[in-house]
């Protein structure tokens, strides 16, 4: 099994969710994160105190899929999340050794 970890633009979440649903991917976990990268941040001023905000709000989407569905899922996700502008984000893939469904202790790909 593989874990797909995508950092995307928050306003793309709805599109990504829909695309994944269409592609038959149901399980996912999302986290609100902030990211730093090539995309430049913005300036905020509070009573003369300037802050260069370079940690921008992003959404992290985590999906664990059977090896066989990896490529398709990555592609679906990336296509849906793409705007073509700096800051669109990254996808990282890591290996998952085991998955357990808490409800009934199912293990492996069947647990997804």
């Amino acid at each position, binding site marked *: 099994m593989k874990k797909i970890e995508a950092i995307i633009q928050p*306003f793309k979440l*709805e599109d990504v969710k829909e695309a994944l649903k269409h592609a038959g991917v149901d399980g996912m976990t999302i986290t609100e994160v902030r990211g730093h990268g090539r995309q430049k941040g*913005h*300036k*905020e*001023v*509070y009573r003369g105190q300037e802050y260069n*905000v370079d940690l921008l709000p992003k959404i992290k989407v985590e999906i664990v899929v059977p090896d066989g569905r990896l490529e398709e899922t990555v592609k679906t996700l990336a296509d849906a999340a793409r705007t073509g502008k700096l800051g669109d984000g990254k996808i990282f893939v890591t290996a998952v050794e085991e998955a357990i469904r808490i409800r009934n202790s199912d293990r492996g790909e069947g647990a997804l």
Partner: protein
Amino acid sequence: MRLLVLALAVCLITFLMSAPAMAQAAGAPDSGAEKIAKLESALASAQSAGDNAWMLVSAALVLMMTGPGLALFYGGLVRTKNVLATMMQSFFLMALITVLWAIAGYSLAFSEGTPFLGGAKYLFLRGVGVEPNADYAATIPHQTFMMFQLMFAIITPALITGAFAERIKFSALVLFMCLWVLIVYIPLAHMVWGKGGFLNAYLGGRVACFDFAGGTVVHVSSGVSALVCALYLGKRHGYAHEPMKPHSVVLSVIGACLLWVGWFGFNAGSALAASGLATSAFVNTHFAAAAGALGWSAGEWFRNGKPSVLGAVSGAVAGLVAITPGSGFVKPMPALLIGLLAGLVCFYMVVVIKGKMGYDDSLDAFGVHGAGGTLGALLTGVFATNAINNALKRPDGHAVALGLADGHPGQILNQFWGVLIAWVLAGVGTWIILKVVDLILGVRVSREEEIEGLDLTQHGEEAYNYEG
């Protein structure tokens, strides 16, 4: 001769004997009259103290409706990235309209002029001092009246901001609002409330339209303008696709509560005195708010199986809107009815009609203020009665029959004219102003700015920095 002497003596004695009486009689009235005159002036001062106390509080309450009331109500309904911009729209108007009003607004609305616009008499508030202006309010300083009216001129444009929340350019908003107050609000206020205004039932208007606290001037005008704005600006990016849930219903509930409380100043303050009429308006206001909340909640309970909190507070606001024009004219039980109807009608407008029509009136300024205001203005024609408000007298001193309830069905037509004028002026005026502002500055932010949010792009701030 003796007789003469005698007679004179008698006269003299008698006179002297009655003299004390005369002296007393002559003295008493004098000093009494003086005292009474003094009392009368002291009385005027005492009466003024009571009325002015109430009116200053009312003015403060109406300001509180805009900030923090409306700022919270609207601010809670938008997404996190736009909350400050939304609150700013209310707050900045508190500042902007004040200066406009001081310079020219009050004069154009309330000094005598044509039936459609006031004159230049009070420019820069010349002649607006602490002496009462008996035309408007005989027992309170003229400045108190001016200030109370200013608070209305602030909240009315602020109500419109609900329609173009989350997508208007701030600079455009500032220009739009200046023009809107000058071109739509002030003429309408003059027509309905100004001396010699076209619709002023009390001070020489041609059509006697009853609008106690601003059903047409405030709510129809802002609500209809909001609709035009929503249509002109178009939908928010992602509307009906992305979730646009209120970022904090808690803020909206606080705001709605403050609106409710502040509305006592708005409506009962419109009696311009701490009189029984103020009490009537206070009671009606409260009753309509309560019934409005129940009405909207009932609608939701029936339709969705559960009443929402946002629905309950929206219903209360709808009830408050609808009772505004009639608050000083109707009895308490009709006030309950007006509130209930407003709750149901505005619920239907916002939940059913808006969905069908498909315009994006982000915070339902039209669905609540436009619809509720129109409904209330017309129902005022039905329920207005001189048992509550007998200020309008026939030449023979009898109180004039007011609404259908007094056997004067024609009033409904009068009310209709008032509403119509407000619709047309607000609709056409707003459209033109939008066009002009759009040409000069552009009214809508870019797609990128809209996605990033108005707080950052228009004001360079974020509302919440919890992680700090």
